């Protein structure tokens, strides 16, 4: 099994249309239950908006702290899952379900192998 990160991508300052939020939350709950029961769940969660992010650069020893996300782009990471999948095909299928559940596109990336 390989671990994949499924990242939820949405526009900055995104807000669900009325009704969509309840629907998405219920669908995501159902998806979470499904992957928990099938043993594919590793971790998952939603993030506060990118405007509440902070970047810390400790390369020079003392921390250089900057308000806001690392890059100002229109699309930002809104949350993510880490799942176990046998291969890319299975990960893509999980991502399809995840995307349909949360009503956003989902980016799939495998974690580096241990070897």
């Amino acid at each position: 099994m390989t671990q994949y990160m499924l990242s939820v991508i949405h526009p900055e300052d995104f807000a669900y249309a009325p009704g969509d939020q309840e629907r998405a939350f219920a669908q995501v709950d159902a998806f979470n239950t499904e992957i928990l029961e099938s043993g594919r769940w590793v971790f998952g969660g939603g993030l506060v908006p990118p405007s509440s992010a902070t970047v810390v650069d400790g390369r020079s020893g003392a921390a250089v702290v900057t308000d806001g996300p690392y890059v100002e782009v229109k699309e930002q990471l809104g949350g993510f899952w880490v799942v176990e999948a046998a291969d890319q095909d299975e990960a893509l299928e999980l991502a399809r379900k995840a995307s349909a559940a949360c009503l956003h596109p989902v980016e799939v990336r495998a974690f580096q192998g241990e070897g």
Partner: protein
Amino acid sequence: MPDSPGPVAGPSRDQLDATIADRITEIVRAEHGRVVATLIRRLGDIDLAEDAAADALVTALERWPADGIPPNPGAWLTTTAGNKAIDRIRRENKRDAKYAEAAMLTDDTPPPDHGPVEDDRLRLIFTCCHPALAPENRVALTLRLLGGLTVAEIAHAFLVPETTMAQRITRSKQKIKNAKIPYRVPRAEDLRARLDGVLAVLYLIFNEGYLASEGEGLRADLSTEAVRLTRQLAALVDDPEVAGLLALMLLTEARRPARTADGALVTLDEQDRSLWDATLVDEGHRLVRRCLTTNRPGPYQVQAAINAVHTDALDASMTDWAQVVQLYDQLLALQPSPIVELNRAVAVAELDGPEVALSIVDRLDLAAYHPWHVARAELLRRMHRYDEARAAYDRALELTGNEAERAHLTGRRDSL
């Protein structure tokens, strides 16, 4: 014998009301930080604390003109605002009301302390000036929450649209909540660095007000606000740099009345020193002397000491330039910067002549900084190198937008 016969016209009812309303507004503004800071700790919610403080102001404006101003207006406002907060929670969410009520009723003792100082305003200023917030947001939050300035006032002072400022403040408050920026005084080992961050915000606010050109009343008020906040901080934290910053602000502010004439900037050597505010100068000098006794020098204290030397001289020719240069040497050791070197060079010109000073100035990489061109212009002028001086004035004029300074520089250039 009365000076004038007949009944003396007293202030009208309307004038009295206006006076009381002004006094109430003044008291409420002075107490705003304390009220909001206490409520944030008890309620854990900045927006609710602000709304409740605003409700308490409305109540004060209704009641105080008739009932008189209470003996301890700060405590009255805090209690009233606390009750208003509970009313608001009741209206919006029944479940939390009991908890809030309990917090308001029982929590009259100082909270359990995480840092060396207890006042809630200190927690609030460290939260507002947290490094995870952008510097301009630290400034806006400090003025809003501790200073009690309205969003419109802050927007006006920083020359941005009100909607922009409102969004900036809302986002910052959201970030405090979302990212869980702590509401506490930093631990002793972090205090020094974090305090420097707070002082930088206060000095920034002061300079925004001080460096503004004339006729921008609200911007001048920023200096007054910065002095008041620094005074409060100095009363809460026993730290020589806080006292040093306060002294630096007072000795700078004292010269404001002499700083412009007919819309043009008047430089220190030409100012009418009788216009300086003697009370502020005295207070600044007392603070500088106290810092010297403490003997833990820092950049603000040394800058205050430099200003103390200037404000000690009855006229510019009596300035103790050797001491000024010595203090700049100390400042350079504490805080090396080409801008400090430039200021030092200006003092060196008085001691060792313009040639020596110009050789220092010309080594500095400050061509984008208009005071560098001004310093060069003045030195070249004294060396009778008028064409070069004129070119330097021109370059300085291209780089500054401040009208009072432009008027001054134009006058200097045209008098060559």
